[in-house]
């Protein structure tokens, strides 16, 4: 590392200190001090209140469900895109990524309009003399919003991983007698795992922390942990309490990332272990 290249890292260093490290310390400081400025665990342990525990649990459940649904939807889609994209322009990929370019608030409000009591779907159902659908302000609406908003984050990394697989590796599996399903589970899936893992992280984390989706599609009736934290900052102006819960949430995110990381590296270290024993 010479002087010049060290100089180049300067702006990034300033950025990360100013916008990542310092804010993080402010959050930690607020979380562990009271109004009198003295150390306290009060705000961090606020999570054990029933309301807070309930919303954290709800957030975890919704995030798990939406992540699972995203994976189920994204994997086949990514495979189709990877197949289609061969030798063609990536316009097909673009079509599926396009919604990402729209403001997420706008997208969520659009869903509100679609799902509303007198919204687009119910308008059509009534016109067809079918019973109306009431999922707005209920958990399914929130999960739907999460899946719609975060699906591209699952599709992209999986698409990247799948399209990087050498066509001849897949051909080799077929050549050795594997049918389509066997090829999928023994070759394509394990080789795409890194993409799956980063897709899961990129959907799970924003699902866990969102408050916009639950606010708009939950009608303020379903409080996720993100909503509670938001209220503490905006309505109660209680920075200590908000930071305390944020820290707890961060711990959950870090734990989930460690688990994923461990699972990911397990895939590659199994062989190293076997190599040692031999």
């Amino acid at each position, binding site marked *: 590392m010479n002087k010049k290249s060290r100089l180049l890292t300067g702006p990034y260093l300033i950025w990360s200190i100013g916008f990542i490290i310092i804010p993080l310390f402010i959050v930690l400081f607020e979380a562990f001090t009271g109004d009198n400025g003295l150390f306290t665990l009060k705000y961090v342990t606020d999570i054990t209140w029933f309301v807070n525990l309930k919303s954290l649990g709800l957030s975890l459940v919704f995030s798990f469900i939406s992540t699972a649904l995203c994976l189920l939807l994204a994997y086949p889609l990514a495979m189709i895109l990877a197949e289609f994209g061969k030798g063609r322009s990536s316009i097909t990929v673009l079509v599926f990524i396009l919604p990402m370019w729209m403001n997420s608030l706008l997208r969520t409000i659009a869903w509100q309009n679609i799902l509303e009591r007198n919204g687009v779907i119910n308008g059509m159902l009534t016109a067809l003399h079918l019973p109306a659908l009431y999922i707005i302000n209920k958990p399914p609406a929130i999960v739907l919003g999460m899946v719609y908003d975060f699906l591209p984050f699952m599709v992209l990394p999986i698409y990247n991983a799948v399209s990087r697989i050498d066509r001849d590796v897949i051909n080799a599996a077929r*050549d*050795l007698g*594997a049918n389509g399903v066997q090829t999928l589970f023994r070759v394509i899936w394990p080789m795409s795992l890194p993409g799956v893992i980063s897709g899961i992280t990129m959907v799970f984390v924003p699902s866990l922390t969102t408050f916009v989706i639950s606010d708009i599609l939950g009608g303020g009736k379903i409080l996720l942990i993100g909503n509670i934290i938001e209220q503490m900052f905006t309505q109660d102006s209680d920075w200590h309490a908000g930071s305390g819960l944020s820290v707890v949430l961060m711990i959950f995110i870090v734990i989930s990332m460690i688990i994923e990381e461990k699972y990911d590296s397990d895939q590659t270290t199994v062989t190293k272990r076997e190599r040692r024993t*031999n």
Partner: protein
Amino acid sequence: MPEKLIDLKNITKRYDENVVLDDFSLYIRENEFVTLLGPSGCGKTTTLRIIGGFEKPDSGTVLFQNKDITDLPPNKRELNTVFQKYALFPHMTIADNIAFGLRIHKKSDAYIRDKISYALKLVNLEGYENRMPESLSGGQQQRIAIARAIVNEPKVLLLDEPLGALDLKLRQDMQYELIRLKNELGITFVYVTHDQEEALTMSDTIVVMNQGYIQQIGTPTDIYNEPQNAFVADFIGDSNIVSGIMIRDKLVEILGARFDCVDTGFGENRPVDVVIRPEDIDLVDPKDGTIEGVVTDVIFKGVHYEMCVMSNGFEWIVHSTDCFPVDTHVGIHVDPFDIQIMHKPESEDEKAVAVDE
């Protein structure tokens, strides 16, 4: 004669507007080492992929032991492929790679274990069971790819330029290895390459292809010594291809001089192409040669000198262990049986089409 194992009948394959194979027919006998040889884009790899089942011909049929397998997917075919870039499964150990086909076919664990050690012994990589593909060199990976294919006891092994990514020395070692494997296993090898040396070294039969047509089929010696047209002569080894006139049987006129040859049946005073290999030209004293020339260029190639000799406006390439310095006046002598006479192609089309009468 062993029976036909693979029979390609009137295969046509085009990608968009580009015709890769046009009414292509070829059969391969049991226990033969067949090499499809030609420049890139000649259709050799497409032919192999059609046999392997990775491509479907637009028309024509593929017979395997007289059964139509044209529409059979690769996993239902009794043949295995060794891919150009090895195509090992990067997430599996060497043992798992080799066992892949056997596990799919639900062989017993004991059988699989035996097969793995047998295959590794065969390719000289014993003790590599638990290594990962990425930790192996290119040559080792290629040998694993071969091991992975042969444990399934295919009737035919298809090899798609398997040595293309290896360096020269390794390539030569692997050539001997492949010949040994072929003899030990006693199965049919269909080998694709653009490397004429590889083809000449290993094959029982060489199929020279160009622009989707077969140019010549024959043993390596046939192909080298008696190329049937200028393309084959030019593609296989260095050669001097010069226009001449067949005066009568066993006498040809080149560059104004008359050479004795051994070819007959071309008629009298017919224009022909004449092929003379550089190593078949003897440089002698000017008064002893059939035609005179001046050395214009000398390059030392290790085994021999490569010299350019200008005579009557034609530049001969000559290989000789004796060195004649630049500007030496020399005579050119060629033994009659070293002169190969070929029909002149009448049109561009005929140039591409097989001359196999």
